[in-house]
């Protein structure tokens, strides 16, 4: 019975969860509390762990709730699969429509303009997300800002290299290009930042 409830709850969450991660967490919260699967404090802990561990927050949270509610690995697998099912149905439909429209209207001026406006909105949205993450909890001291700036510079170095070579009109230093490609790897930068945190704090 509890498995059916889990399945249904997380399918609902998957269907209604517009706006990604944090929006989904609040939906999961109301499901969890209304079924009495865990206490509010337990849920807050789970959200913290879901944020601290890698992977999409919604999947992390679903896995954890599924395990805690049933005490079994099957419960967590069920909850994780349930939250993905609606995405799968809706996103595949959207992909089909998008592919169709794109092939047909590739050179249509209005279509290109609409997509341009949408892209602009997306960039603004993500910029807003980045700014809203600049909280005192993440930026605790001057070192945080140094880590932030160095990471940003490393990430943008390949772009800067490209601009400089374009400006000079020739590829001058292939070694530097290689270096910028290596240091701009996000996984490497996250591991480095973790190591720096370990040494500093």
């Amino acid at each position, binding site marked *: 019975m509890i498995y059916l409830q889990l399945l249904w709850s997380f399918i609902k969450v*998957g269907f209604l*969860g517009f706006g*990604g*991660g944090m929006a989904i967490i609040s939906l999961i919260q109301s499901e969890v509390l209304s079924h009495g699967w865990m206490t509010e404090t337990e849920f807050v802990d789970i959200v*913290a*762990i879901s*944020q*601290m*561990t*890698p*992977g*999409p*927050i*919604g*999947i*992390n949270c679903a*896995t954890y709730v599924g395990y805690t509610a049933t005490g079994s*690995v099957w419960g967590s*697998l069920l909850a*994780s699969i349930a939250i*993905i099912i609606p995405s*799968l149905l*809706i*996103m*595949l439909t*959207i*992909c089909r429509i998008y592919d169709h429209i794109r092939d047909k209207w590739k050179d249509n001026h209005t279509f290109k303009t609409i*997509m341009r406006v*949408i*892209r602009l909105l*997306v*960039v603004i*949205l*993500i*910029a807003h*997300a*980045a700014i809203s*993450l600049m909280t005192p*909890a*993440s*930026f605790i001291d001057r070192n*945080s800002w140094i*880590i*932030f700036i*160095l*990471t*940003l510079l490393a*990430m943008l170095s390949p*772009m800067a290299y490209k601009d400089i070579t374009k400006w000079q009109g020739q590829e001058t230093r292939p070694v530097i290009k290689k270096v910028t490609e290596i240091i701009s*790897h*996000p996984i490497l*930068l*996250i591991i480095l*930042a*973790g*190591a720096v*945190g*370990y040494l*500093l*704090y």
Partner: protein
Amino acid sequence: MPDVRLIFQLFWTYLKIGTFTLGGGYAMLPLIQHEVVDKRHWIEEEEFLNMIALAQAAPGLIAVNSAIFIGHRIAGWKGVIATILGAALPSIVIILLIAIYFQQFKNLPTIEAIFKGIRPAVVALIAAAVIRMARKI
């Protein structure tokens, strides 16, 4: 007919994305951008933005929605299965381990110190993705 190697590449790419992104959603974008646009050239920068717009508009998790988009584009439904498995597997394994064995995980000072270093870097990664994308509008 997509070959086995391509399916495995899709799985492996999203496994990496699922393993190394902290904070979910937007924090995944720079890594997806790096793997899918720069490294594999599966889609171009401009289409990357279209993909995010679609992934954002649909309900569900942005990371999972983008996994579905890429999997579908590159190798059809087999690709979708590969990317979803890749994106979700690390989460499920890590969370299960924590749920079963390490309830005190979040209170370990070492872990906390590592995260103090990682948090500002994650913000920088997202900011860099914004700057790159802003140039392609």
